[in-house]
């Protein structure tokens, strides 16, 4: 326990088992970005998965929409300490997109329009844990929040859910992405409070 802050009582006393340590609940949807918001038209949008074998799998927007689409209800947790419960998304599971991908590498680098990158172990994208999401709360995903499509990997801090996603590159090792080079944890488990280096 820390130093008692004279006169501080705080707001919430109920322990909420769904709230990771050090987080507080918000009903807003704050924005965390490192630069200007890219505007990507779905006509020019393309998504790729590239492997160490030199193979690149491509999807256009229309091809993505033709895949099985899932409804996702999940809590999300931002490293800046807000959590939002019961958010609803629609998207395509990474299990679907990786079905024909042949790789022996265990790590991925996620690439975004605008140059953002983030690293996620492949195992964290498989098994119904991650999606390419294009709808939030019944509406097309707003560019501020990563539209037309973002990665959604809600069991990790939300910077891993890369906005404006355009591709996944297989990596042999767990190389740091953008925020991971700028002070944030290589993995980002909210339940272990893996915020910083």
């Amino acid at each position, binding site marked *: 326990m*820390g130093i008692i*802050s004279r006169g501080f*009582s*705080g707001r919430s006393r109920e322990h909420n088992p769904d709230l990771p340590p050090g987080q507080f609940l918000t009903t807003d949807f*704050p924005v965390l970005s490192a630069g200007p918001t890219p505007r990507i038209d779905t006509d020019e949008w393309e998504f790729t998965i590239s492997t160490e074998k030199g193979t690149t799998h491509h999807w256009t927007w229309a091809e993505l929409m033709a895949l099985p689409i899932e409804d996702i209800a999940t809590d999300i947790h931002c490293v800046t300490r807000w959590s939002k419960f019961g958010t609803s998304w629609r998207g395509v599971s990474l299990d679907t997109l990786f079905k024909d991908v042949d790789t022996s590498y265990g790590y991925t680098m996620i690439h975004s329009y605008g140059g953002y990158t983030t690293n996620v172990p492949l195992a964290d994208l498989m098994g119904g844990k991650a999606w390419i999401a294009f709808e939030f709360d019944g509406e097309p995903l707003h560019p501020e929040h990563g539209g037309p499509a973002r990665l959604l990997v809600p069991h990790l801090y939300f910077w891993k859910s890369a906005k404006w996603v355009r591709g996944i590159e297989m990596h042999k090792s767990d190389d740091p992405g953008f925020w991971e080079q700028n002070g944030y944890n290589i993995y980002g488990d909210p339940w272990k409070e893996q915020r910083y280096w």
Partner: protein
Amino acid sequence: MSVDSVGTWKVGTVTAVRSETPTGRSIEIDVPGWGGNLAGQHLDVRLTAPDGYQAVRSYSIASADATDHLELAVDRLPDGEVSPYLVDDLLPGDQLEVRGPLGGWFVWRPEQTEPVQLIGGGSGIVPLVAIARAHAASGSTAPFRLLYSVRTPEDVFFKDELARLASPTFEITWVYTRAAPADWPTKPGRVSHDILAASVIPAGDNPSVFVCGPTGFVESVADLLVALGHPAASVKTERFGGA
């Protein structure tokens, strides 16, 4: 608690508080072992209630030097949990726990030689003041400009300090969005394409641009900068808002 290179929580002692605006104040803290921070970085502040309940929030640091003395400036959020305590209750002599410095992206280093354009909205000025202070202290000859957007003249953070920092190599443009000073030549209004075109270091001079403020302000300004030809890669943003 996680353990990482940011280090453990350090205990700081408040040495001074100063009212900056009707809803905001600056806070000076001595933190033994802090050891300084880069201009533009932030820290975590942790408050603990008598029953052990803790609340942590991140705040930008207004100072940028190699000492154990640092300065914050905090705006009170209407529904905030930590900011009302920091703005209304904290007194000199009180102790605070802090951890940091944090963040390696929205920073300026004295060895950078390119022109720098700072654009702040409201309390978004805080990390920009740190950058301006570091620029002045370093003797850097890199051209600097600041555009500072506030609702009214009362809402200016670090008014005296900015007046001192202003110089031919650090020009300041003021934008008032709700109410301007009595003798002000233009009507209040939001930062527009025309204002940015007239007062921001042109894209052709390849400036680094730092934009900090509420989300709506930063979104709007960053879009306008890209439309004015600034490469997205040279525009660094830091947003706050909502909770």
